[in-house]
Structures are given as C-alpha cells and as structure tokens.
C-alpha cells in the first residue's frame, strides 16, 4: 500500500494529530493504527513537518545585531568559568535563571547528599540500637539460665545431702493411664520426714488439682496419704510427709491426681505407681 492509497480517514487522523485537535476517540484510533503499522510514523512526521514549514513564509524579521554577540559571549563566559571536559559539551552560562537553576540544582544535590547521609546514619544507629537491645536480652536470658542452674545445683546438693545423711526408702515409678509415659523415682527420708520426687513427663496440673502421694505400709490397713505436691518443669520436688509411718518401707507407693478440696481419705485418678523392687 502506497501513501496515496491510505484511506482518507488516516490522513484526517495524521492532520488532526499535527494540529492537536484529535478527539479522545480519534487519539485511540490513531494509537491503534500506529501500533498495527509502525511505518505510518513517517507519514505522521511529514504532517508535523509540513505544519512546521509555515514560519518559512513569514515576513523577514531580523533581531538586533548584538544578539549574536550576546549569545556567544554567554557561551564563552560559561566555557571560561567551567573547566572543559574532553568529548563533552561544556554547559553555557547564559542568564540569571540559568545560574539560579544551577545553584538550585547544586543546593538540591547537597541537600540530597546530606539527607541520604543522615538517613544512612539513622539507619545505622537504629540497627546498632536494635543489636544492643538484642545483646542485652541475650545477656538477661543467660543470667536467668545461670540462676536456674545455680538453683538446681542447690536443690541437687540438698537432695544429695539428705540422701547421704538420712535413712531412706527409694521407689522406682512408672506412669499409667493418660500419663503412661511418665517415669521417675521417689525417696522418703525418715530423719527429715520428707519425700523427694524426680519425675519425667509428669505435667503441671490446673490450679484446682494436686498430685497426692500414697503408701501401702504394713501399719495401715488402707493406703496411707503421704502428702501432696505440684510439678514444675521436671525439677526435683520435695514435700513434707504428714506421718512418720510414711517413711517406713512400703510395699507400694502410688501417685494420684485429686481435687485440691478432695478428702484425703481416698485417692483420685491413679497416674503413677511403684515398680516392684528388683531381686
């Protein structure tokens, strides 16, 4: 298709574009046309160029003769004030607006650099503050751990001392029912009338419940209530034995879960019992 073969509608669009009087619908139509046929850009430029020829027909008008000198002087001034760079056109200085713009640009650049530097420092400070806080938190945790270990060591030494110095009975325990995975050992100390339990997987209880320790001793016809306790994090547990009879060697010991308010006449749910002594 040659240029003269273009539909008249296309030429209307090109002319309207050059004149700036296309409607929005025509703009969309032209955009689609140019997208479909990019070569039409050349014809579009011809219309722009044709319109741009109009000034050629203007009455001759000559500026004042010193305008050329003023322009060149501005260029030379700029060249003298700025060191020339190879292969680059030196920016001319031509009027006050240029210098205001240049000054503004430099000020804006400095402001931007300072702003960026300030932002970078703020970010660094923030990161360092965060790191310091994290370190302080780690240190606090480490201190807590040390204190816990110290406390556990104190408890262990207390237990060892008791075990060394007292007449004792030791029972191995295993879980049953819902706490079948529980296991542990309990020691009753006759001299101190207390019991020490080391247990695993014996969970903490709700506030209205408690573990109770029972012993099957010869002096009693029924299981003897021998105190109660709660657990916390598998730590050794100590409690006072309510009766000297509880320190006597027992055929079996049991642990139950009972309401805090329940009578000690009988036990609740059985969760651990002692294993028969070996051999």
């Amino acid at each position, binding site marked *: 298709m040659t240029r003269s073969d273009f539909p008249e509608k296309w030429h209307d669009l090109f002319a309207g574009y050059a004149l700036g*009087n296309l409607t929005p619908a025509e703009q969309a139509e032209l955009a689609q046309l140019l997208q479909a046929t990019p070569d039409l850009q050349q014809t579009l430029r011809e219309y722009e160029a044709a319109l741009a020829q*109009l*000034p*050629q027909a203007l009455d001759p*008008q000559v500026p004042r003769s010193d305008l050329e000198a003023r322009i060149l002087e501005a260029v*030379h001034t700029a*060249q003298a004030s700025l060191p020339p760079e190879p292969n680059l056109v030196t920016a001319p200085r031509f009027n006050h607006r240029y210098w205001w713009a240049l000054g503004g640009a430099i000020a804006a650049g400095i402001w931007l650099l300072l702003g960026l530097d300030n932002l970078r420092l703020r970010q660094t400070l923030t990161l360092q503050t965060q790191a310091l806080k994290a370190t302080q938190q780690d240190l606090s945790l480490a201190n807590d751990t040390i204190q816990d270990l110290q406390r556990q060591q104190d408890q262990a030494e207390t237990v060892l001392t008791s075990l060394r110095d007292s007449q004792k009975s030791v029972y191995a325990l295993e879980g049953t029912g819902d706490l079948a995975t529980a296991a542990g050992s309990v020691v009753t100390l006759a001299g101190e009338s207390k019991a020490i339990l080391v247990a695993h997987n014996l969970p903490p209880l709700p506030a209205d419940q408690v573990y109770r320790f029972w012993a099957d001793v010869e002096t009693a016809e029924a299981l003897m209530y021998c105190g109660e306790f709660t657990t916390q994090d598998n730590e050794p547990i100590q409690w006072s034995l309510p009766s000297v009879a509880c320190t006597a060697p027992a055929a079996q010991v049991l642990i139950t879960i009972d309401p805090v308010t329940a009578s000690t006449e009988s036990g609740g749910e059985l969760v651990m019992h002692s294993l028969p002594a070996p051999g």
Partner: protein
Amino acid sequence: MHSKPETIAPNWLLTASDRELLAAMQQGQVEALREIYRRYERLVYALAYKVLQMPEEAEDLTQEIFLKLWQSPNYNPDRGTLSTYLCLITRSRAIDRLRSQGARHRLVQRWHHAHSDSSKANPPLEQASLGEQARRVRAALANLSPAEQEILEIAYYEGLSQSQIAQRLELPLGTVKTRSRQALKKLRRLLQDLI
C-alpha cells in the same frame, strides 16, 4: 578573562552541512554555533516575534533557543531538518510563554495587532522570498483558500484551542476541525518533496 567571540567564521563552516555543524558544536566549537545561528536567526526570531509580538521577548526567546541547542542538543537529524526542529521548539516555547504571561491580555493585544497587519496592502505571503524554501512554502500557502490559510495560521501561531478558534472565527467547531485538517493535508501534498 573571557575570550571574545570571533567575528569571522573559518571557511569550512560556511560550506558545512547542518549535520557537520552540529557535530562540531557538540565538540565544543563555538564557531559552529555561530554559523548555525547565522543561518537560522531570522527564521527563529521571525517565528518568536510572530507569536509573542514583542521584540524584546522574541530576542530573549531566540537567545534561549540557540543556547538550549548549545547546551543540550536534542535534535536528531534523522527525524527532519534542523530548520524544522528549530521551528518546532521555538513555536512550542513561544506559545508556552504566551500562555504563562496572561493569555487573555496578550491575545487581545495580538488580535488588534493582527487586524492592523491584515489591513496592510502588502501581506507577508505576497512579499519577495528570502530563499527557495520560503518561496516554496509561500507558493504552497497561496494554493490554499484564504479561509484555510487563516485557520492554519491561527492554529499554528496562537496556540488557541479548537473552541477558541471557532469562537474567534464564528464557525461551528466541526467546521474548524475539518477546514484546518483539510488545509494541512493540502499543504503536505504541496510540500511533499521538502519534508
């Protein structure tokens, strides 16, 4: 100390093409800019004056156009002649100035000026040409009807909207669009070998 501009161009500049002058200018040769200025100062100034109607403003804009060309030449020779490019940017900046300096007052001023010009016995299009291109453009415009010439010139030099042109010429908006497009299509056909 500033070096004074030379007043005599080297011989090669006088015969160099616009493309060669631009290349030299981009290498920092002020003499090339001066030669470009000498070739197109009248065209740029005439256009600036036609739009702005004020000699001082037209000179200021002419200076701005050539210094802009020196500072950051965006002209692409593959997309048209240098004269076309200079006319495009001069017209664009002139109309921007016109609009920013109080359009209503300026347009009234221009309107009176245009009417006084039209009463002259020797309108621009009938005057002797300064060159072949000017002669061709004038001849092409002469092939348009007076109404088509008028509407093209208003659209080009005054930067009015279509509705403003319609109001000015007391024509329906559709007629303004149709007539101006028809005029430009004719002009393009007549100047096909120049553009």
